[in-house]
């Protein structure tokens, strides 16, 4: 057993990883500092439940609504998987936002963590983007009309608005094309960008250490 570990460690550098990532000295912090990893936890939950949902979900106007109905009523624990995904999205927005406020309140975005902050803002926007694109997917009245107005809002930009609206919708109308591209954004493009950004964010957090709670003289 010990030999096997040694063999692996020699090749993978497990001890180094342990020393660098886990066995580090960090400042004492309070409960507000747990929201970063809580956001990561929720994001992972979203990923896992989202992958499960794609097993039955069909991104087409003819079948999207019925396939969601099937997940809710026809599949065992479908209600749980979708329920977690649905509520997880809301909670994720909340935790990410409070996390952002915490960083602001303790001035943790200042030297040397400026770039960590920038990646964090990117992640915040990605979370909102995931929320917006995911909202359309059930293809029900609520999601349809909310997206109709949401894309209309983007279309009010002077000059390029009409173009942006057509890019978002994939044409002038909210249609099957819109659903397909929102689906693609929701499950491939935005998560891919988010994973890269989360990686950078975590790398920076480990490299620079968790910020400390500033004292009165700081």
């Amino acid at each position: 057993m010990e030999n096997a570990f040694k063999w692996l460690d020699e090749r993978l550098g497990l001890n180094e990883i342990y020393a660098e990532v886990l066995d580090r000295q960090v400042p004492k912090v309070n409960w507000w500092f747990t929201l970063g990893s809580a956001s990561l936890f929720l994001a992972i939950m979203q990923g896992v439940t989202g992958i499960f949902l794609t097993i039955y979900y069909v991104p087409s106007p003819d079948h999207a609504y019925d396939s969601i109905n099937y997940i809710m009523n026809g599949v065992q624990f479908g209600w749980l998987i979708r329920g977690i995904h649905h509520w997880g999205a809301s909670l994720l927005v909340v935790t990410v936002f409070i996390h952002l406020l915490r960083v602001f309140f303790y001035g943790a975005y200042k030297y040397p963590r400026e770039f960590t902050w920038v990646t964090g803002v990117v992640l915040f926007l990605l979370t909102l983007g995931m929320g917006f694109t995911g909202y359309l997917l059930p293809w029900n009245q609520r999601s349809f009309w909310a997206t109709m107005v949401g894309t209309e809002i983007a279309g009010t930009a002077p000059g390029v608005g009409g173009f942006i609206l057509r890019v978002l919708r994939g044409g002038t109308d909210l249609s099957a094309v819109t659903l397909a591209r929102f689906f693609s954004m929701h499950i491939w493009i935005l998560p891919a960008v988010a994973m890269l950004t989360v990686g950078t964010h975590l790398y920076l957090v480990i490299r620079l250490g968790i910020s400390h709670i500033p004292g009165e003289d700081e």
Partner: protein
Amino acid sequence: MSKKTSATHIDRRGFVKIVITFLGTIMGVVIGLPGISYFISPALKAEKKDDWIPAGELESYPLGTPTLFNFTQTKMNGWERSSQSYGVYVLREDEKKITAFSNVCTHLSCRVSWKEDEKAYLCPCHDAAFDIQGEVIHGPPPHPLDEYQTKIEDGTLYIHLQEG
């Protein structure tokens, strides 16, 4: 070694860098540009529409009260034939004067509806109101309700649908 290199002579290191940049750029452009136009191409097709829509007999519209007329137009959206619904408020003021307003709010395209007791078109999204002539009474809309051209043939009302 590189320090000795003259401006005209490229050493191996510099050559490799140029080749890498060049090949990398080619690959990036050949995949990247088509990728972008692949994504945005549905947005580039401008659609034009110019139709006279029959809206039923003129006599069926009461005098003085805006009456909603709905119609649908089917068109291709990508691979899908989908029907688009339109709502028109037809106002017959007297025997001759007919106005037809789109029921799309000029603010953010929510649908307005005529409220007889308030004598106004109300938009549920941002509390806007338009009067019977389509003018903004209050709320954020930037301009009056859009008006459709109308014509009457053999007692049938036609509405001119023009887009693009």
